[in-house]
């Protein structure tokens, strides 16, 4: 009876990943009550920082832009980059604006985010998305002084992006 056993195993995996992606208790600041997850993509990449003078005139690392590959089931299915933009391989893409943040797991992890979708292009899997959550962040943080204005530093990170739609 190997088929039913596999089916049960699959069901357990699916449940497991749904729980990870959406049904775990997210901090209120990034929750999206009344919205439904369309899917979750894993991101691997870098947060790019630029050495800039701050308000006090001292040079410090300032966040510039993200650059990451988006994965689903071990396949590369898109990219995440400046905007912030998420682009899926079917040509659909959304741009978001931060609407809420919550601390990462440890001090080196970039914050968890909630972003409202502010524009879209193409038509496909991402088209219905109204909200994007950045969860399960690892790495990506860079703080402190730097020495040469205009230099860059890439800090590796991973995260999961949950795409949600209203209703």
């Amino acid at each position: 009876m190997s088929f039913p056993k596999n089916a049960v195993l699959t069901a357990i995996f699916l449940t497991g990943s749904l729980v990870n992606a959406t049904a775990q208790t997210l901090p209120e600041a990034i929750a999206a009550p009344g919205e439904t997850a369309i899917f979750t993509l894993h991101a691997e990449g870098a947060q790019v920082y630029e050495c800039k003078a701050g308000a006090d005139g001292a040079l410090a690392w300032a966040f510039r832009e993200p650059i990451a590959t988006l994965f689903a089931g071990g396949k590369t299915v898109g990219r995440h980059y400046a905007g912030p933009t998420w682009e899926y391989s079917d040509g659909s893409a959304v741009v978001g604006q931060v609407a809420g943040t919550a601390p990462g797991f440890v001090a080196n992890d970039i914050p968890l985010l909630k972003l409202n979708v502010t524009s879209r292009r193409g038509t496909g899997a991402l088209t219905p998305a109204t909200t994007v959550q950045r969860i399960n962040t690892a790495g990506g943080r860079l703080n402190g002084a730097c020495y040469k204005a205009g230099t860059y530093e890439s800090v590796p990170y991973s995260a999961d992006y949950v795409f949600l739609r209203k209703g």
Partner: protein
Amino acid sequence: MPIVRNAAFALLLSSASVLSASAQTPLPDAIAAPGESVVLTLHAEGAQMYECKAGADGKLAWAFREPIAALLLDGKTVGRHYTGPNWEHIDSSAVVGKAVGNAPGATPNDIPWLKLTVTSGRGTGILSGVTTVQRINTAGGKLEGECDKPGSYRNAPYSADYVFLRKG
């Protein structure tokens, strides 16, 4: 006469960047592109991504999977580099390359310098007509050794300059 002084300074700066991009100490033979001329040089910031996989000997080790990087010019983000390997400019022109030569990076932690022949292109713009891409001035990006969990990923941050050339 600050304007004149600035102009002279700007000239020096742009000569310096042209020098470091192409006319610096000759590139290693293995990645040279004699007879081709530089169209554009872009700076890349991003990560080389590795996946934990069983090698030929059955042991789990980090295997290179794909690059992901922002392409920058004069402080502006003008494109992306990603699996293919693809280089995509915001004017929508893009090329895909295939490595045909390599030379060691400056230190063991730096990924090799590369010469890639363009195998396909799309869109129309600044990258149209490019026949060769060189990856030079690499810093970081290397990951070697054993890993524990098949299918897990790790990013090694890197930077490099990509020189786009065309024949003639």
